């Protein structure tokens, strides 16, 4: 969506739209609503197969709740820096905007890095995509979330480099706000995933 946000610089702001909302913003909301069902179906698959694995490792064998809590707070903290980036961009303060965008991207990369580390540790403890249903559902759900975060990081870094190349539109606040919407959405989805996957006990009969 980065390209859509950047290309239409200001969406419909130069052209009156029927709803009064810029078309790009409406499109972003529609995309996020659609993406809700994407994660909804993935989370449903995970919940359906809770405790259905016939062999370990089970969630309680591998989860390290304090570790994942810290990386979750890192991701949630990035929503704050994102807000500050949008505010700076709307003030046309490009210097601050770059700082906060980079901070957001760094926090996102810390989260993704933590996820890569976590996946590696789980794998070494015997949990893989093909090991059991927990492995299949866990890696696919959290992996697709991680991919969303990675795409968000790519868009944030693109914004920063576009701003150095003077490729941002006059109204720089608009594309930053659009990517901010995406970023907050991905954060909120993680709150649901963290709660459902890590915090609610599984009650696995196998163990």
């Amino acid at each position, binding site marked *: 969506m*980065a*390209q*859509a946000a*950047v*290309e*239409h*610089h200001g969406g*419909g702001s*130069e*052209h009156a*739209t*029927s*709803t009064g*909302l810029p*078309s790009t913003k*409406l*499109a972003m909301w*529609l*995309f996020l*609503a*659609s*993406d*809700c*069902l*994407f994660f*909804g*179906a*993935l989370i449903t*698959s995970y919940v*359906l*197969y809770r405790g*259905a*694995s*016939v*062999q370990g490792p089970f969630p309680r064998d591998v989860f390290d709740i304090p570790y994942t809590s810290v990386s979750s707070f890192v991701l949630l903290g990035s929503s704050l820096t994102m807000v500050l980036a949008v505010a700076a961009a709307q003030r046309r303060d490009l210097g601050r905007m770059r700082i906060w965008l980079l901070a957001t991207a760094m926090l996102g990369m810390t989260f993704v890095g933590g996820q890569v580390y976590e996946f590696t540790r789980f794998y070494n403890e015997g949990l893989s*995509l*093909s090991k*059991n*249903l927990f*492995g*299949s*559902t866990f890696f*696919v759900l959290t992996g*697709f979330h991680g991919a969303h975060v990675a795409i968000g990081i790519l868009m944030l870094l*693109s914004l920063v480099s*576009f701003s150095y190349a003077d*490729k941002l539109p006059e109204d720089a606040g608009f594309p930053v706000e659009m990517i901010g919407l995406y970023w907050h959405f991905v954060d909120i989805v993680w709150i649901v995933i963290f709660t459902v996957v890590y915090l609610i006990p599984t009650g696995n009969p196998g163990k």
Partner: protein
Amino acid sequence: MSSVSVPAEERPGLLRRPTAVTGLWSWFTTVDHKKIGILYGLTAFVFFLVGGLEALLIRSQLAQPNGKLLTAAQYDQVFTMHGLTMVFLFVMPMSAAFLNYMIPLMIGARDVAFPRLNAFSYWLFLFGGLFLYSSFFLGGAPNGGWFGYAPNSTTDPSPGMTFYALGLLLAGIASTAGAINLGVTVLNMRAPGMSFFRVPVFVWMGLVVQMLLAFSLPIITVALIELLFDRRFGTHFFDPAVGGDPLLWQHLFWLFGHPEVYILILPAFGIFSEVLPVFSRKPLFGYQFVVFSGISIGFIGFGVWAHHMFAVGLGPVANTAFGISTAIIAVPTGVKIFNWMATMHGGDLRFTTAMLFSVGGVMNFVIGGLSGVTHAIVPADYQQTDTYYIVAHFHYVLFGGAVLGIFSGLFYWWPKVFGRMLGEKLGKVQFWLMVIGLNLTFGPMHILGLQGMIRRTYTYPASLGLTFWNQVATVGSFTIAAGVLVFVVNAVSSLRGPKDAPADPWDGRTLEWMTSSPPPVHNFDEIPTVHALDEFWHRKYTEDKSGRPVPVQAGASEQPHPGGGGHEIHLPGPSYWPLVGALGLQLVGYGIIYGWWLAFVGAALLLVGVFGWALEPSAE
């Protein structure tokens, strides 16, 4: 919309934007919704011919007991590809063609909200379709039915169902992008004065369809990803041996699959709602009823999916609930039927080919709708499920309803799109061939199904007594094929003829008839201001005391615009990047089957496309 342009010198880009707006190359870089609509329509029609040939193969195989034309394995591929082609590569993109071309014209806009995204949707649909068909040469086409039930689809050793998962994912991304684009277009690009209840019904149905797409496609996306991972990366989503549940596939598939049914039929409902009033010279009876029943079909459509699964043993409570919701969804559909009948009642009817196809479409849809209600009765469905009775039902709905609706739309809007009329005589020959053919083909399937002929069977023994009606169905299918051939002749001879269609050949009611045929690239010299539903009609006619339409005294402003001006209007320039990005995604698809290096090449190409797109100078 980048309607305000900045001169190229002021915004130097890394890469030049293509400039050609005519000639062959312009079709590869176009972002004009009209050209993209024509590309969609042409591509979908070619897929229709291919899917039709597959249908003829199926009917030839079944014309005799113990048919030897196809082996069982070949038959599986042919019927699967027939279904996939007709659903995903013909009816959906043909609807996209109409919606693409007509929505901006009918709401008084110059283009869709995101012209380059529109081109991207088209190219990705084309590459997804070619990807699916390339499987015939790469080890075997999909062979597990268009519904791809697990665990048959996860365990089949041929690569066909991997192509199925990836091909539908590609087409799904294309449709999602298109849904967001067209949805925003309707919400945000309406001409001044066009409030929601002045929007033509075809556009309304288009909006409902885009919402259905936006909220049902992500569900099948997840199902296809799970199928792909089961086949390719060893996950166990649908593997009962380790606790997985094949029913999860059925739930996810039909949670998409039933809204999909309405995605296929609602554009045809929109066409009926445009054609019937024009050729009855009356406004649509109960416009708001038709709109609201379309919306409620959209909502209820998400609550009926398990009626495809009555026989899998969900239990009496679930079966009863879904039986009831299925019976309920017949109500808004019935409302529309009565509205269309009331529209024709007392009208000044003109039976042009477009009108014939709409009337025929409504009638044949009613037959399919009635047999659909019989499926809502759970005990009856136990007898009907997986028999030819089901095949009869959905072909009446999809061929009798959607395909006849599409041909009605083709005859109705052809002069607007190409500036030439289609032959009425050949059109009527085609209509009767198709209506007789479809009833000969699909009517007997009710009987075959009730006699117990199972679906998807590649042959049957003579002793079952199924031969006669199968032969009738085969004769019918070739009759339909003759009708399609007549259309091809009609279309080719029309395109060879002179461009002599008037701007408003049918005495139309909606804005697209105000501009020239074909419309200028900027659609309207001046964006019309809308004062009423059926705006164009009210500009041409007023009413006398008894309510009859009386032509308005000739006023220059009421005449269709000739479309000669508009030189100062800036439209978004053409672009290569949608094509590049779509090609990259297709390579990612092949890469997932044939090796990571290819997927990386594809991903790199996709990134090049995305960044080229984002950095493209917006100048003309």
